[in-house]
């Protein structure tokens, strides 16, 4: 056991910090063009696509370096790069399962955010039970004809391309009749409607596909092999990268301390109230334990250990923590915690969506984490079955087969 950073990683952190101090934009990025420019700058500095192999335009960096960059960006609340889903999950899927032509065509433009990507997986009636999805892709020889509806699509309105799961063979058992194909979002058969969330903003969309066209040359893997491919994508999505997230929580904690010093009850700062102190001590312990756990994951990744099903523990841990965290912050702050615009008592805090806002925004966003990317209940099923080796449950859809 040695939890010190290697000297060259410490140096890298210092260099990253200097770069960010010199380059982080002073004003909020408003337009897509401004966000693209910032993304491009990050990419050219080597801070985007860090884990991607060099041959595909990436930087071939270690997970540690990537974690350091995310941590430093969180420290100064730097705007995140765009195309996160593309670079984090879709690109790696193409690298693993795609053809050489697909890699040449898509990867570089994904990295530079010239083309923005979205994920077309969830449907109104296929959430946790993703394999029951109904969107059809009919084989038309050189292309598929796509009809159906997707939901919870991030970056929908700005996306150029999507990675789609659709049913190609309704006669096969549900996990075996699904195909993964890339879909051009810029075509008449694809309609994107923003979906307003409880936060008041619209980070997600619904996508309607009516006789949309997906090319055969954009097929990922084989026909009806889509479920397997989706599993690798989800595998990239869970775990890792939790250091920057914890730093955002810590920044919010500092704002909570500031607020409890400035807000007074009966003439005394909230921070002097023993009941408030006990709660803050409990939540800070919880927060730091998330950091220790993140370091542990990082140490395993550094050694080349695949986190596998254990990454479900990480995801379950931080998303459930985040709910407890902001619930407690709002309890402590009372009605001040519910304000949707920052005030003098506390500055903006970053929510888990990356959107800046208040404790109220962060609280509302905390409800999303335990639902997306496999709900807490699904994570507990995975942990129970694959980590603890508990027997599989009897399920109606398994009995039918």
């Amino acid at each position: 056991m040695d939890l010190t950073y290697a000297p060259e990683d410490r140096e890298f952190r210092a260099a990253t910090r200097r770069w960010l101090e010199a380059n982080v934009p002073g004003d909020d990025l408003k337009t897509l063009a401004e966000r693209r420019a910032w993304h491009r700058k990050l990419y050219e500095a080597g801070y985007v696509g860090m884990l991607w192999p060099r041959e595909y335009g990436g930087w071939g960096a270690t997970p540690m370096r990537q974690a350091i960059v995310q941590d430093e960006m969180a420290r100064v609340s730097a705007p995140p790069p765009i195309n996160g889903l593309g670079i984090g999950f879709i690109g790696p899927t193409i690298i693993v399962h795609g053809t050489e032509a697909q890699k040449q065509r898509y990867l570089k433009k994904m990295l530079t955010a010239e083309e923005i990507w979205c994920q077309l997986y969830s449907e109104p009636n296929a959430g946790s039970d993703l394999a029951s999805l109904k969107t059809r892709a009919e084989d038309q020889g050189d292309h598929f004809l796509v009809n159906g509806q997707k939901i919870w699509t991030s970056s929908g309105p700005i996306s150029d391309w999507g990675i789609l799961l659709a049913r190609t063979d309704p006669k096969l058992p549900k996990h075996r009749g699904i195909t993964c194909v890339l879909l051009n979002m810029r075509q008449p058969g694809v309609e994107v409607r923003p979906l307003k969330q409880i936060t008041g903003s619209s980070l997600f969309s619904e996508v309607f596909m009516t006789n949309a066209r997906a090319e055969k040359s954009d097929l990922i893997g084989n026909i009806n092999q889509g479920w397997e491919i989706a599993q690798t994508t989800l595998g990239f999505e869970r775990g890792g990268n939790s250091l920057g997230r914890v730093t955002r929580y810590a920044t919010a904690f500092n704002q909570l301390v500031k607020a409890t010093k400035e807000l007074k009850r009966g003439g005394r700062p909230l921070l002097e109230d023993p009941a408030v102190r006990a709660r803050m001590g409990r939540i800070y312990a919880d927060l730091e334990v998330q950091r220790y756990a993140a370091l542990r994951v990082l140490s395993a990744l550094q050694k080349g250990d695949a986190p596998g099903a254990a990454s479900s523990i990480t995801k379950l841990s931080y998303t459930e923590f985040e709910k407890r965290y902001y619930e407690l912050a709002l309890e402590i702050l009372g009605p001040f915690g519910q304000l949707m615009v920052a005030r003098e008592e506390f500055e903006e805090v970053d929510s888990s969506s990356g959107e800046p806002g208040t404790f109220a925004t962060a609280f509302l966003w905390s409800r999303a984490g335990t639902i997306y990317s496999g709900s807490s209940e699904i994570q507990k099923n995975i942990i129970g079955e694959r980590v603890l080796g508990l027997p599989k449950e009897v399920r109606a859809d398994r009995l039918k087969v």
Partner: protein
Amino acid sequence: MDFSFSSDQQLLKNSARAFLDEHCKPAAVRLLWDDPRGESDTMWKEMAQLGWLGLSLPEAYGGSGLGMVESAILLDELGRAAYPGPYWPTVLAAAAVETAGTDTQKKRWLSAIATGDARATLALLDADLDWDPGTMSARAEKTPRGWALSGTKRFVPWAHVANLLLIPARAPEGPTLFLVDPSASGLTLSPVQGMDPATRWVQIDMDQVPAATDAVLGTVGQAEPLLASLVRRGAVGAAAEMLGAARRCLDMAVGYAKVREQFGQPIGSFQAIRHKCAEMLLEIENSHSAVYYAAWALDAHAEDGELAASIAKAYVGDAARKVCGEAIQVHGGIGFTWEYDLHIYMKRAKALEPMYGDADYHREQIVRRVAR
């Protein structure tokens, strides 16, 4: 950055597991419940031979010079076996003598402890029930031949089998730590039995207990930093032991959920049970991270070492309570019987929960450090 155990550390863990699986079975723990001493001298000598008692002592005194990480590994396993005996109080007391003692004091005690010939304990909790190392109601008055100690120490672990008591008392100069002979005049030891029959506590009443000038450990009036560091190390060790006990409870619950059938199926196939087990594992894994981070931070003199120690104790206390409690729930009725072994481990974790600073104390330490 390496959060995994080195091969030597893994070896220590494996050998501890093997030894305790053989020598500290639940039946062996139960046998000692009615024993007046409550511990086995044979096992103590074997632990000495394995080098456990001198684990963190310098080689000059027969020790191995290892750190808090290694102690935590051992305590994790001792907790998993619900080992009954004065291991951790003795090792902590030895660390105090090693840190602050004179050559004479070290020669007198350290080798004897490493060889298993002496047991020791620390009276960290006073009649005032405050874990703050600066506050104590026990008094040390100067006498012509040294000192006279008066006052009451509460819930002192294993004092009835100790050859050496480390007792803090307030001298006119401030908090002072004394090495006290358990057979000294004016000293009364009264056993106090909690719910864990394998944890022994003793109340120490002192009425003008004589202590010689050379019985002071460290500098008169300056014991507070040493006491604070003992509470801290003690807390991390207790957290490791609670973690081990909770691990055992989870293992038993998962094992049971795989074989116990109701409604024609193993109960582990029901989400109500499976999700509970997953939540328990989450608490175990987070506790593991907390314990070993803190142990490493103390060894490395990291700037957040003190914070990490309080975090480990506060977090693991809550986590172990949850895991052990839910293990009973998963078992159902059988888990509530005296014959079934589950309560052995649940009670061990419980007994350690208020020790070396309870969660409230440590949460306040956390807030003092991070909300200035």
